[in-house]
């Protein structure tokens, strides 16, 4: 080791010790403040905002006393048992593929849950009172939209990516125009376009509730991005893989399914998880259309002038809820992608058979 390296090393060690102490102190201060403000001095339940003003800490009562608004937004109060059940169904479906991380299981359980949940929100399929989609709201709506958008945007994105890589010029250019024009505009303008402009031109869409238009916009927008991620993954599959597959007699579909896509998925899994998390957050843009997703519903708690001062608490609760949802999506994504993982070079622990001593190849190509 050279003298210079030694100096750097020891300096690095000193500063890392110092940094660790500073870090610990800062952390302790934060924890102390959060505990005092958020727990010890906080008012958890009270119908009266004045109780909060007397206390030194957080006023969680702004949320708890108006929980119906925060959780269900504009959904008719008499019927909130319906979105409640819908939320339970959607959450249940979310956890099934967490236990058994298979794409097919995810797709089927989410589809079933989405159909049931939409039916409950709507009411008519179950012979219940009809609630129009623009009245749906709150946390269950965010769950519904997130799952629906994730479930639909991914296959659509994959289809767009395959179209863009296909040999057919028409397919390729159609996909190119679609993806590039969608990626070229902000989601907000796409939301307005889908819900306000498009129905003017397509009379068939004029009767459609704006919630469906908004959902379609979110799905299309994300599918465009997802298709680019997939395309990146597809290009990592060496051309020799296609040669080998074709020489064995594989047709295009089974070649994609069994040889190309499993490898492409592996290459782009982290970015795909990113996209899924992004979808959850995108649903909060529904507010610009006057729809009441969870974010917008929670803000209703501040409409009452007596609670208006407690916006920090509302946003903390909303932020925590979004964090949990995004974290759960991220964990699920990682479970799914690690179920696709196969050993990398020298990773002997993953072999199924005991390893006799072998010579490891220099490289594959």
């Amino acid at each position, binding site marked *: 080791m050279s003298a210079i390296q030694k100096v750097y090393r020891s300096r690095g060690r000193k500063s890392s010790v110092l940094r660790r102490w500073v870090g610990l102190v800062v952390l302790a201060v934060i924890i102390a403040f959060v505990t005092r403000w958020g727990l010890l001095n906080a008012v958890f339940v009270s119908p009266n905002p004045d109780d909060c003003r007397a206390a030194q800490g957080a006023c969680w009562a702004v949320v708890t006393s108006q929980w119906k608004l925060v959780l269900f937004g504009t959904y008719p109060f008499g019927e909130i048992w319906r979105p409640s059940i819908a939320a339970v169904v959607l959450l249940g479906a979310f956890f099934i593929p967490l236990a058994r991380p298979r794409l097919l299981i995810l797709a089927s359980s989410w589809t079933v849950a989405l159909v049931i949940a939409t039916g409950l929100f709507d009411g008519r399929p179950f012979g219940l009172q009809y609630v129009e989609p623009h009245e749906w709201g709150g946390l269950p709506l965010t769950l519904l939209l997130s799952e629906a958008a994730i479930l639909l945007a991914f296959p659509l994105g994959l289809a767009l990516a395959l179209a863009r890589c296909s040999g057919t010029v028409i397919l390729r250019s159609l996909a190119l125009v679609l993806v590039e024009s969608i990626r070229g505009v902000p989601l907000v303008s796409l939301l307005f376009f889908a819900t306000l402009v498009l129905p003017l031109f397509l009379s068939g869409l004029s009767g459609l509730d704006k919630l469906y238009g908004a959902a379609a916009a979110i799905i299309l927008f994300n599918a465009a991005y997802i298709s680019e991620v997939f395309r990146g993954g597809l290009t990592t599959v060496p051309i020799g893989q296609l040669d*080998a597959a074709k020489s064995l007699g594989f047709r295009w579909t089974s070649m994609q399914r069994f040889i190309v896509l499993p490898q492409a998925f592996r290459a782009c899994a982290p970015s795909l998880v990113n996209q899924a998390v992004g979808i959850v957050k995108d649903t909060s843009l529904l507010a610009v259309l006057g729809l009441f997703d969870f974010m917008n519903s929670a803000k209703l708690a501040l409409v009452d002038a007596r609670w208006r001062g407690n916006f920090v608490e509302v946003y903390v609760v909303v932020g925590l809820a979004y964090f949990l949802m995004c974290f759960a999506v991220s964990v699920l994504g990682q479970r799914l992608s690690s179920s696709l993982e*196969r050993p990398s070079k020298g990773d002997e622990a993953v072999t199924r058979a005991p390893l006799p001593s072998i010579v490891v190849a220099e490289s594959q190509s």
Partner: protein
Amino acid sequence: MLEIAPSVTNHQIGDVIIEMRKVEKSYGSYKVLRGINLSVSRGERIVICGPSGSGKSTLIRCLNQLEEHQAGEIIIDGTPMSAGARGIDSIRREVGMVFQSFNLFPHLTVLENCTLAPIRVRGISKAEAEATARTILKRVHIPEQAQKYPIQLSGGQQQRVAIARSLCMSPKIMLFDEPTSALDPEMVNEVLDVMVELAESGMTMLVVTHEMGFASKVADRVIFMDAGEIVEVAPPTEFFNAPQSQRTKKFLGQVLRTQAG
């Protein structure tokens, strides 16, 4: 000098299985194949050699239409190769191919590499496909590696898996494109041995290689290609001892010198 005595046992040569007539192929304006005429009989072993860029790979890749030819006819086992995509799939099933860079499926185990096509393309049951695969892995001398992934094998082992993967489709013809060129020298023979055994079993084989020892031992005919043309075709004894063309002589001089040294 090279010992030139065909040592593979005598074998049956049957009717014509590959027929190429005036086959032409270009990339843009660049002609890669300039009127190839070749007819191969069932059970025949052909070795193709020639300088780099002479069109050897292109020729054998046209045989299973990994490359499309633009003019001329290619007829495999009675079926013309310019038919629709469906026809091509069904011919590809009967024509195995081994590549210089192995091209094993990295996300599948050795056994899965060998059973995927029989199951998904031929529709054979998993149990049957696995039984066949294990027998064939034994034939290429790596039965114990069935559960490993390609990346955990040496180059020679990977290439033998690639041969096994093709054989699992029970092909009528096997194409090899420089199967030992990407291998470290000490692994070349383990692959060539498997190919010699395959030749002894009566398989129709077209092998692009510069392994002249293999050619003299196994080939019924050796083809020399240069600049997109077949310059010379002859049985190995004649080819090595009495090459006709000046270009063949020059090429042989270069190849044999490097292989002796």
